[in-house]
């Protein structure tokens, strides 16, 4: 894992003091709310429905147990004993006081964490593959590239007042576990014909009210040009992205309006110019960072067999563990989706337990998934049963990864000031329905994603089944969408038709799964069946 050196630590410490000073000036009335808002947002501090909300960055989703303990301590000391893990691999606290915010940032800085640029119209936390460094199918570990870009984007003098937020994801495998093409910039680390590593740039993806899939604008940027190329992409956006309408300000609109070709041409021109400006760190810097991401000392002789005699354990192994590059290991997913619970929420106690288990069983490492679960990336197969038993006892053993119970839900109207409708109760009712009718397992992989408004924080456009909360004359209403995906088979979901009320939407989800069960052919997932038979059979069953 990356460790701060004296430079990184000094920067984060300076930021804490800067924010302390800004908060003081706000409390003394030297800054108006309009002036303070972008400053607090760039430190992850929102004003939400009930209080201030603080979003803490978990760069590329990677944490060690000391950091997870610190997150738990913050939940207890400054919040109400819990936190919410988000689709951008971060954690949010819902009950923060402005008076405490600088102290929280100081506590975070002690464990090499921060809330820098977790909101605001700047380059946000950089996300990555949650199985990075463990996945059997990855080309290289994508995190060193993400860290290089994290440093480049931190306190960027030119790009801190962009037209709109800017999100970057980095992956390094064919399988996309990070919704790479739904980001402002998606980077895939690839090899060229000569076998050299480079970066494919996808620019102009995003969700929100106009979802778009990013086109590839350059299939191979050499590694010693990575930062320069990113700088060129951003400069063109900063100069020409729309500022007249906040709903048209994301880079996806610029790329769409110019056309990918013209945008690319402008980027290439700026890139050639920037090549002479010395903005690229030397490759030695990338090598230095890579040094922190070397494999832990895997036991290469570890037994690759799992004793499956305990049936409950076997179900969990089948659903919640994922193949690892070392045959004696797996990546184990801790579900934060207990049936009837709040997707992505974890109590301080649960955080501490996960931290301790990571220490005992996963080389001290944890990952936050964009699906709002936690991963222990490197677990010896021989340790799995003990791990599962400890999780199960703490209510963290739900065997439901990638099932209909593994729902992504944004905070919605229970917490969010922009919401039209509640998301969490819908997730709860759906999970309960399928747990009760026993179909969770038989439906196989089914990605269900719920957003409480058009901003799409819950990725509803990318759900095999998506749900969008809307406001119908002051009453919560829910639209149903089908056929989205954020993986390598990326696609945008389509609305089925008129919306439903709270009970109606739960029934509607059950109805479309019944259509799938009746129509599916061997090995088809829900989304495969939808793609083969199209929307009509689902519409008929829903509105018939």
């Amino acid at each position, binding site marked *: 894992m990356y460790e701060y050196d004296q430079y990184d630590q000094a920067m984060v410490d300076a930021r804490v003091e800067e924010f302390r000073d800004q908060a003081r000036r706000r*409390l003394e009335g030297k800054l108006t709310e309009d002036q303070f808002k972008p400053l607090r947002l760039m430190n992850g501090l929102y004003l939400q429905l009930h209080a201030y909300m603080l979003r803490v960055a978990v760069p590329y989703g990677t944490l060690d147990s000391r950091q997870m303990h610190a997150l738990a301590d913050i939940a207890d000391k400054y919040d109400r004993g819990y936190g919410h893990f988000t689709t951008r691999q971060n954690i949010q606290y819902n009950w923060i006081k402005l008076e405490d915010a600088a102290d929280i940032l100081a506590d975070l800085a002690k464990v090499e964490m921060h809330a820098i640029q977790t909101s605001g119209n700047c380059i946000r936390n950089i996300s990555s593959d949650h199985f990075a460094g463990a996945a059997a199918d990855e080309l290289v570990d994508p995190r060193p590239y993400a860290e290089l870009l994290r440093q480049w984007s931190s306190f960027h003098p030119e790009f801190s007042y962009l037209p709109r937020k800017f999100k970057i994801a980095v992956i390094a495998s064919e399988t996309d576990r990070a919704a790479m093409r739904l980001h402002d910039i998606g980077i895939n680390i690839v090899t060229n014909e000569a076998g050299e590593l480079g970066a494919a740039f996808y620019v102009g993806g995003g969700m929100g009210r106009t979802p778009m899939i990013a086109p590839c604008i350059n299939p191979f940027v050499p590694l010693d040009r990575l930062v320069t190329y990113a700088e060129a992409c951003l400069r063109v956006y900063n100069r020409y992205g729309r500022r007249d309408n906040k709903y048209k300000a994301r880079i996806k609109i610029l790329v769409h309006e110019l056309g990918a070709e013209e945008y690319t041409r402008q980027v290439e021109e700026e890139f050639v110019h920037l090549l002479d400006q010395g903005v690229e760190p030397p490759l030695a810097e990338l090598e230095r960072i890579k040094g922190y991401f070397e494999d832990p000392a895997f036991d290469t002789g570890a037994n690759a067999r799992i004793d499956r005699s305990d049936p409950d354990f076997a179900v969990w192994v089948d659903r919640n563990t994922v193949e690892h590059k070392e045959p004696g290991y797996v990546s184990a997913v801790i579900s934060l989706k207990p049936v009837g619970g709040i997707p992505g929420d974890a109590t301080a106690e649960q955080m501490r337990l996960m931290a301790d288990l990571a220490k005992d069983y996963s080389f001290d490492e944890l990952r936050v998934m964009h699906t709002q679960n936690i991963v222990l990336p490197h677990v010896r197969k021989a340790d799995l049963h003990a791990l599962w038993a400890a999780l199960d006892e703490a209510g963290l053993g739900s065997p439901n990864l990638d099932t209909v119970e593994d729902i992504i839900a944004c905070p919605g109207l229970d917490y969010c000031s922009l919401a039209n409708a509640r998301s969490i109760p819908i997730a709860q009712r759906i999970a309960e329905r399928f747990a009760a009718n026993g179909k969770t397992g038989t439906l196989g992989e089914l990605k269900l994603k719920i957003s409480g408004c058009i901003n799409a924080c819950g990725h509803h456009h990318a759900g095999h089944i998506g749900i969008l909360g809307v406001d119908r004359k002051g009453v919560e209403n829910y639209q149903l969408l089908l056929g989205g995906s954020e993986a390598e088979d990326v696609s945008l979901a389509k609305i089925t038709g008129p919306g439903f009320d709270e009970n109606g939407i739960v029934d509607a989800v059950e109805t479309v799964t019944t259509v799938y069960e009746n129509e599916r052919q061997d090995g088809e997932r829900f989304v495969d069946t939808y793609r083969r038979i199209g929307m009509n059979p689902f519409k008929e069953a829903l509105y018939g």
Partner: protein
Amino acid sequence: MRLLTGNDLKTGAVTWWTGSDWSIHVEDAVDVTGSEDEIARSEEAARRVNVPYAVDAELHEGSPRPSHIKERVRAIGPTVRPDLTLKPADPEIGNWVI
């Protein structure tokens, strides 16, 4: 009726204008029809409240109940965590909010 609401600058807590001060309990709110802008301006300038705004409400069993669901969620707390609301012991509060 119209209620004036905002958040406490220091704590972020949801507050309601009582006619002379700010309260976290919506029951204490008073009708501000006609004077909302003026109160909002002077209270914000004094930093006793952050981003105040007025909302529509009706009287419900003698107490003000905001017309929009978002304001009712704000007034009480998250519906999915009754233990964290202002009325953890009131089993009927869900019906008031929704």
